């Protein structure tokens, strides 16, 4: 098991290296000069521009710039943001708790709602309950988060006045963003749970369990669900990445702190060090989560072993 983890972590290194090269070249290929943005977009004297580019190290050839960046990054120094002039790592760490909180809350909501809807639909196949659950799931898959967020603000913050529309801190401020974020993933999970569950319910051991006289509830939740969840775990891992990306829109609509918003601002500013730092950080998180998902299989299914 430990060896497996070690191998996987080593295999992650080329992935992260690839990501960093990709981001680095994309940033430098896009039009727009960060030095010019810092000096203001108005035309600056060529001397000023050259001086600032030199001070920022943008006058060196690309591969030299990349080598410098990589060297610093390996020693844990992601540099300073060009705009705020704060340390990139500080910027990321300040925004991280909010994004993690939102992503986990959204994911928890997605799993609970998704599994409940999926199981209900599968066990009542063809009934009105099935139709209703799948209609709800379809809504989650097809509604844009941006629109859903504004609608939730309109009803719960403006019309009913139950919840605040924006900001950080406390459960009350987390409910609407988490709902907006989690609903889409809940739809995906519900549809998957339903089909996976239907498949499992047809397998012989379920029939055996039933013939032994076990209560239907026990059959469904103890025996069938556990097996039906394996593909679900995969999709949860993938959804985690999607949710991490999806937070940008939610963070903007609900004016929450977060990595996503930080990244969009950094891209628009051509704040190279900040963009590189955030992407590298997010990619690492993604790789790590997928490793955890793979390890999670072993927990749900004793037949899977990593030796």
């Amino acid at each position, binding site marked *: 098991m430990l060896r497996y983890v070690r191998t996987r972590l080593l295999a992650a290194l080329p992935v992260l290296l690839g990501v960093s090269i990709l981001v680095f070249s994309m940033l430098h290929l896009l039009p727009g000069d960060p030095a010019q943005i810092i000096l203001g977009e108005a035309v600056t004297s060529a001397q000023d521009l050259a001086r600032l580019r030199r001070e920022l190290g943008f006058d060196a050839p690309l591969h030299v710039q990349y080598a410098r960046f990589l060297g610093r990054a390996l020693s844990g120094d992601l540099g300073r943001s060009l705009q705020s002039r704060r340390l990139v790592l500080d910027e990321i760490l300040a925004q991280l708790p909010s994004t993690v909180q939102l992503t986990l809350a959204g994911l928890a909501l997605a799993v609970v709602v998704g599994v409940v809807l999926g199981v209900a639909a599968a066990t009542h196949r063809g009934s009105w309950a099935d139709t209703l659950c799948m209609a709800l799931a379809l809504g989650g898959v097809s509604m844009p988060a941006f629109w859903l967020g504004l609608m939730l603000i309109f009803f719960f913050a403006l019309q009913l006045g139950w919840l605040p529309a924006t900001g950080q801190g406390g459960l009350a401020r987390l409910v609407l963003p988490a709902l907006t974020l989690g609903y889409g993933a809940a739809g995906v999970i519900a549809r998957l749970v339903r089909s996976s569950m239907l498949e499992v319910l047809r397998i012989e051991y379920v029939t055996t369990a039933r013939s032994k006289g076990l209560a239907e509830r026990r059959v469904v939740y103890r025996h069938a669900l556990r097996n039906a969840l394996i593909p679900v775990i995969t999709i949860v891992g993938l959804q985690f990445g999607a949710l991490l990306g999806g937070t940008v829109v939610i963070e903007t609509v609900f004016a929450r*702190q977060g990595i996503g918003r930080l990244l969009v601002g950094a891209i628009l500013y051509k704040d190279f060090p900040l963009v590189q730092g955030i992407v590298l950080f997010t990619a690492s998180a993604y790789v790590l989560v997928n490793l955890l998902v793979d390890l999670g299989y072993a927990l749900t299914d004793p037949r899977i072993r990593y030796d």
Partner: protein
Amino acid sequence: MDKADRVRAEEHPDTLSRRAFVGTALGTGAAVAAGAFASRRRAGAQQPVRGGELRFGLRTEPDNLDPAVTPWAVSHRVMMHVYDTLVWQDPADNTFKPGLAESWQVAPDGLSYTFKLRRGVKFHDGTPFNAAGVKFSFDRIADPETKSGFAAALLGPYAGADVVDEQTVRVRFKVASAGFLDGASQAFLGIVSPAAVKQQGKDFGLKPVGTGPFVFKEWVRQDHITLERNPDYQWASPVFKHQGPAYLDRVVFKIIPEDATRLATLENAETNFIEMVPEQDLARLRADTRFRLVVGSIPGLPIGVFLNAQKEPTDSLEVRQAILQGLSRADIIKTVYFGAYQPAHGPLSSNTLAYNKKVESLNPFDRARARELLERAGWKAGAGGIRQKDGKPLKLEFVSSEFFKGLVTVVQAQLRELGMQVEPKLLANPTRLATASKGEMNLANLGWVASNPAVLGHFFHSKNIGAYNWPRVKDARVDEMLDRAEASVDVERRKQLYGEVQEFAMQQALFFPIYEQLNFCAARAEVHDIRPDARGSYLWLYDTFVTK
């Protein structure tokens, strides 16, 4: 002056929202015509009360609060309460009033300004304010190590400052600087605490220390910035309505990028003041007694379209005149902007110093006359309703951005009626600006926030071809007028010279002015006395109070 004003117009693009791409337009605002718009007071003036807080919904977040470093308007909106300036510009008449400087004298050659400073002023860290502090602040901007963009531009041809005595400082320039007071009245040239700068170094912009009516308290990135009342404040400028400490206990700037959300927070009182109200919501807010609109009128270049006088077919005066006279700005304002703006008539908004009223009668809307001009220039009716000359169709390239799509579409439709084919190129901002600066277009829209009429030099001085001289005009007489105006400290003389430049631009049909920029903000009814400054873009909160 150049980058400065231009950059202020560009809003801080840290959001996905449509307004992030407003470009040169609605970004900032100024309020000279405050009388007509600002703070519509309901019947019965309120007595100011102490206490309470202003929760100010900002669309974007400052990058940092070091005036020497940040170029953004949004930073100014926060910094202006933390730092004081040497002088203040009175929005009522555009004159300069005392601030940290009690009085000042401009040398007749315009090469130096001598300021007599107030006594008894203290920075928030307790250190005294004096002439050395002024010299320190300006020297720091001029120091290449600071990498100042915008403040350095406002400081202009700075040569240095002399501490004459504890309360007297002389600021010297390499060439005459007629616009210096304009710069000195902006928080970008606000006076910083030398002790705090030395202590905090690079992090000064995160924990700013000045002499202003509010003291910086905390900044939670992407969430809020809190300022608290400075209890020792006894040096308010006479442009304000009262003396002594501010009325508000604190000001909390909440960063809410999405327009619809920001408006929702005003309605459910999470905020009690917001900036950048979308045009389509203005009528509803105006009709609702729970709110009041605060509107700043922005001086500088109105939103309009430059015509490239060096590229076919707009190199012909008749074609340019036909465009100016064939387009209806009233229709554009009504269709695209819900009638929210007043039409503009020249390259300066009517509230800008040196505005020349004569431009209003030049190029009146007249489609028949526009057709006649085109006929006279040899552009005859051709295939598909597009005019032709020597076998070539009358085609115009219009460089703009996605944000101005509505404007471009209406212009396209209106010019089509006259037989001109407009080909829009909607580009991302950096590319758009570069393309227009290179002159690779016939039409390109722009707007520019500036309280100094010297801004005209950007568009019409031949030295700026390749930069913002988008009409690519090269006229020795105009260059000379602009140079003389920039160096003259005689206000009347400057007005006359800039007035002539405005007439020239309109006679040559180099710019189609559309509307004068406004800064739309909204307050809850219990918030009183928020006043836009002379640039309309920045809001004075020192006199502000909250009832209930």
